[in-house]
C-alpha cells in the first residue's frame, strides 16, 4: 500500500502547492487590481482614515490652502474642506466618496500617498508607527489673480465664461477660473443619499456649474485666430513686416460665389492696407484672403505650433483646440472663414492664453502647468515641475512683428480694444492683445462670444509677466465683454507682484 500512499502524499503536496501559488496570485500579483475594483469597501474606508495631502495655491509666494483634510472631532475620519469654495473649484475639483475630479483626480496618488514616490516614506512611517499621510501639492496659481479672475467673471452679468492666465516664460498657470462654478464642499459628505441629491441638482442645472469651461469647453476663436493666420503669413513670406500691404476688398468674393464681409460692412482702409492696419481694425477680408493664399493645411500647421490639435495635460485634462480636418476643410471658400477663426475652428479659453503666451515669450510656447512642486509629509520636495517647451510657434522676429501688431490693437485709438484695454483703461499698464467677436451656433443664430487674448510685454528686456485668455459665452464684442476681465486679472496679479 505504501506505493499508493506515496502517490497520495504527492497529491496532497500538489494541493498545497496549488494553494500557495493561488494565494500568491491573489495577495501579491493581483492585489492592486482587486484594490481598484469599483465598490471595494476597504479601499473606500481607508481613503478617509488618514490625512490626505493639502492643495495649495503658492503663486504669490505665500501659501493659500485651497483643499485640506480635517479630522472630524471624536472620530478617526478625515473630511475634505475647500476653504475657497467656488473660486478654485475648476482647479481643485472635488473628492467625493464615489469619484474625483480636477487636481484631486489628476494627482490622486500623491495626495493619497499611494504614489511609488512616497513608498520610502510610507515604509518609514510603518516602522515608526506614524500615521500614513498624503503629499502636499503646491500649485502655480496666484491667489491674487485667481480671486480677481473669478470676481470679474461673476460680476459680468451672469454670462458663462472662463479666463486663464499664464506666465509666458515658464507656462505656469497663474489663474484658471470658470463661471458659473460650484462649491466642492457640498460634495464631501459621507452620506451617499445626500451626495446623490447634490450631484443630481448640479448635473440637472442648465448653467452646467460642474463644467470646467477653461479646459473642457471649446468656442470659436473668432478674430483672435488672426494671430495664427498672421504667423503663417509672416513665416511663409506672404508678408515681410507689419507695414507690408495686404489685399482687403469689401467684400471679398469667394470662389463658391458667396462674399466675405468686414464687420458692419466697413471698408478696410483703402482696400490695400498694411497688415498692421488690417490687424488693429480686425478686417475679415484681409485675413480671409491671406488664408486662401496660405491654404488650410498651412493654417492647420501653424495652429498646431500654437498647441492646437492635440490634448494637453496640465495635469488636468484639456480637450484639444482644433482646426479640424472636417469634410471640405481644404475648400478655399471655407478656408477663408477658418482664417478668421470661424467655420470649424474651436478653442478653449486656455488656448486663447497660449496664443498670447507664445507671442510674449518670443515665439516659444511653454507647456502650461498647474503644479509647481509636490512636498512629501516629511517636507521633502518629491516632485518639481521644470518648465518645458511645448513647441516653437514662430521665430522671434515674427513674434516681434505679432507683438507690435497686438500693441496697436490697444494703443492705437482706432484699435478694437483701445477703449477697454488701452493705457487709459488700465491705468498705465501696457497690454498688447487681440479681440474676437465670434459668431456661433447654427446659422450663427446664437449671441456672439466675446474673446480676448493679451499679454503684458516685458519691460527692459525682462520676460513678460503674464498672458491672459478670456472667452465670455454670448458676451457680444470681445473688446467690451472680455477685455475688461483680462485687465482686472492683470492688475491684480501685477499689484501682488510689484
Amino acid at each position, binding site marked *: 500500500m505504501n506505493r499508493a500512499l506515496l502517490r497520495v502524499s504527492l497529491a496532497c503536496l500538489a*494541493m498545497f502547492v496549488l494553494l500557495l501559488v493561488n494565494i500568491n496570485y*491573489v*495577495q*501579491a500579483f493581483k492585489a*492592486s487590481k482587486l484594490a481598484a475594483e469599483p465598490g471595494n*469597501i476597504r*479601499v473606500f474606508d481607508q481613503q478617509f482614515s488618514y490625512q490626505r495631502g493639502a492643495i495649495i495655491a503658492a503663486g504669490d509666494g505665500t501659501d493659500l490652502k485651497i483643499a485640506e483634510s480635517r479630522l472630524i472631532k471624536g472620530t478617526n475620519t478625515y473630511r475634505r474642506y475647500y476653504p475657497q469654495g467656488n473660486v478654485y473649484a475648476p482647479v481643485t475639483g472635488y473628492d467625493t466618496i464615489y469619484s474625483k475630479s480636477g487636481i484631486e483626480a489628476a494627482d490622486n496618488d500623491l495626495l493619497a500617498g499611494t504614489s511609488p514616490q512616497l513608498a520610502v516614506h510610507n515604509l518609514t512611517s510603518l516602522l515608526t508607527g506614524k500615521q500614513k499621510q498624503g503629499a502636499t501639492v503646491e500649485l502655480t496659481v496666484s491667489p491674487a489673480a485667481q480671486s480677481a479672475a473669478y470676481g470679474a467673471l461673476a460680476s459680468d452679468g451672469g454670462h458663462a465664461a472662463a479666463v486663464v492666465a499664464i506666465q509666458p516664460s515658464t507656462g505656469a498657470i497663474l489663474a484658471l477660473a470658470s463661471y458659473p462654478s460650484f462649491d466642492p464642499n457640498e460634495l464631501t459628505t459621507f452620506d451617499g443619499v445626500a451626495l446623490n441629491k447634490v450631484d443630481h441638482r448640479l448635473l440637472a442645472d442648465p448653467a452646467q456649474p460642474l463644467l470646467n469651461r477653461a479646459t473642457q469647453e471649446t468656442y470659436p476663436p473668432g478674430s483672435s485666430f488672426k494671430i495664427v493666420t498672421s504667423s503663417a503669413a509672416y513665416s511663409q513670406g506672404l508678408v515681410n513686416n507689419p507695414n507690408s500691404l495686404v489685399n482687403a476688398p469689401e467684400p471679398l468674393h469667394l470662389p463658391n460665389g458667396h462674399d466675405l464681409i468686414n464687420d458692419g460692412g466697413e471698408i478696410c482702409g483703402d482696400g490695400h492696407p498694411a497688415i498692421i492696419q488690417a490687424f488693429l481694425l480686425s478686417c475679415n477680408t484681409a485675413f480671409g484672403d491671406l488664408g486662401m493664399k496660405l491654404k488650410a493645411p498651412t493654417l492647420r500647421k501653424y495652429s498646431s505650433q500654437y498647441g492646437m490639435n492635440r490634448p494637453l495635460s496640465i495635469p488636468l485634462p484639456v480637450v484639444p483646440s482644433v482646426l479640424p480636418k472636417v469634410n471640405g476643410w481644404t475648400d478655399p471658400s471655407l478656408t477663408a472663414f477658418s482664417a478668421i477663426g470661424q467655420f470649424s475652428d474651436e478653442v478653449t479659453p486656455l488656448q486663447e492664453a497660449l496664443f498670447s503666451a507664445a507671442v510674449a515669450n518670443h515665439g516659444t510656447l511653454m507647456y502650461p502647468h498647474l503644479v509647481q512642486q509636490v512636498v512629501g509629509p516629511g517636507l521633502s520636495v518629491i516632485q518639481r515641475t521644470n518648465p518645458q517647451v511645448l513647441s516653437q510657434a514662430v521665430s522671434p522676429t515674427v513674434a516681434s512683428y505679432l507683438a507690435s501688431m497686438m500693441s496697436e490693437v490697444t494703443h492705437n485709438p482706432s484699435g478694437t480694444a483701445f477703449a477697454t484695454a488701452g493705457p487709459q483703461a488700465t491705468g498705465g499698464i501696457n497690454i498688447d492683445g487681440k479681440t474676437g467677436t465670434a459668431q456661433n451656433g447654427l446659422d450663427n443664430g446664437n449671441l456672439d462670444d466675446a474673446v480676448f487674448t493679451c499679454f503684458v510685454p516685458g519691460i527692459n528686456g525682462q520676460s513678460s509677466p503674464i498672458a491672459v485668455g478670456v472667452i465670455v459665452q454670448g458676451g457680444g464684442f470681445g473688446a467690451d465683454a472680455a477685455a475688461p476681465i483680462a485687465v482686472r486679472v492683470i492688475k491684480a496679479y501685477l499689484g501682488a507682484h510689484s
Partner: protein
Amino acid sequence: MLGFALAVVLFAYSAVGLGLKGKLPPGLPVQLLVFAVLMLAAHLVVRRFAPHADPLLLPLAGLLNGLGLVMIYRLVQSGRNGNHGLQVTDMSTSATTTQLLYTGIGILAMVAVILLISEARVLQRYTYTLGALGLVLFALPALLPASHSVVNGAKVWIIFGGFSVEPGEFARLALAVFFAGYLVAKRDALALAGNRVLGVDLPRARDLGPVLLAWAASLMILIFETDVGASALFFGMFIAMLYIATQRTSWLLLGVLLFLAGSWLTALLFHHVMERFTIWLHPFQGSNPTGIAFQPVQALEGMAFGGLFGTGLGQGQPYHTPLVQSDFIFSAFGEELGLVGVMALLLVFGLLVQRGLRAALAVKDPFSKLLVGGLSFVLALQVFVIVGGVSGLIPLTGVTTPLLSQGGSSLVASWILIGLLIRVSDSARKPAPQPIQDEGMTQVVRAA
C-alpha cells in the same frame, strides 16, 4: 515545540489587543492560561500514554487551534467594547469563551481516544458498527424537520434546545474507520479481480457496488442537505482510501469520472450549485459583487488588501466578509497577517498532513495505515476545498477550516482526528518489543 506554539499564540493574542486599542487585551491572562493548561495537560497525557508519538503533531494542531481562538477573539471585539469596525452580527459576545470550551472538549476527546484505544487496529472490530453510525449521523439532518436541522441554508445540523451539532463532521471519522475496515477485508478482491479493457483493469461489476453506494450517498448529502463541501470530502476520502487499499489506478479514474458526472448532474439540476460556478468564474461581473458574489468578493478584496505583510491583527476590516468567523476565517488571516502569514498557516497544515502520512507509511498494520492515510488525505482535501474556495482557486463550497474556524463539532472532530494520528504514529514509531526470553538467564543452572 509546544512552548514555541504557545508563544506564537501569546504574541498573536497581544497583537490583537495592541492593534485594536493600543494596549494588551484585558482577558489575556485568564484565556491564555486556560489554553496553555489544556495544551500542557494534553502534552503530558501524550508523553505518558503514547510516548513514541510524533512530537510535532500536538504542537502543530495546538498552534492552529490557538490562532483560531485569537482570530475569533479579534472578530468578536470588532465594533464592540469601543473597538473600531463593524460588529460581526452572527457572533455572540461569548464566542471566544465558547470556542475555548470546545477546545477543552476537543482535547478531552483526543485524550479519550489516546487512553481508550491502545492500538488503532482495535477499531477494526467496530467496522460495521461505526459504518452504520456514520450513515445515521450523515442522514439524520436530512430526516429532521428544517427547524431542527437548517442553519444558513445548509441542512447539516441537529438542533435541540440551544445546542447544535454538525453530525457530518463525526460521521466522516466513523466512515473512515468503516472504509478502512471494509477495504482491508475486501482489498484483494477489489485489487485483483477484473477484466482488462483497453489497457485499463476494470473492476468486476459486483465489486462496483460499494463504490456506487458511496457515490450515491455523497449525492444524497448534496441533494438533501445542500452541502456540496461535505459531499466532496466524503467521496474524496473514499476514493483515496480505495486507491491506497488496491493501488489500482482504474478505481481512481472511475472515482474522478463519477465525481465529475455527479457535479455536472447536480449543477444542471440545482440552481445553487450552478450559481457557485457562476460566482467562481465571474465574481466581478455586473451586479455580482454586490449580489450573489458579495461574500467571495469581500474575501478576495480583503486578502488583496492584506497584501504581502497584512494590515496587522486587529487593524484590517475582515468584518465585511459574511461568515468570516467560520468558512471564511482564512480570508481574515490573509487580510491581517498578509501573504507571509497565510503561507505560514498553509505550511503548518501541510506539515500536519505530512506527519500523518508519514505515520501511515511507517505503521505496519494495514488497517491503521489505511485509516490514517485516509484521514490525512481528507485533512489536506478539506484545507484545499475551503482555502481554494475562499481564494477563488475552485468554486466555493462551505466547509470549515480545520482547527481554525469557529464551531464546536468541527473542532472536536479535528481533535479526535489528531488523537488517532497520535495513536497511530505512536504504534509506528514504537521500537520492536524486546524478546521475552533471555536465553542466557534461563539456562543458568547452578549446581551448588
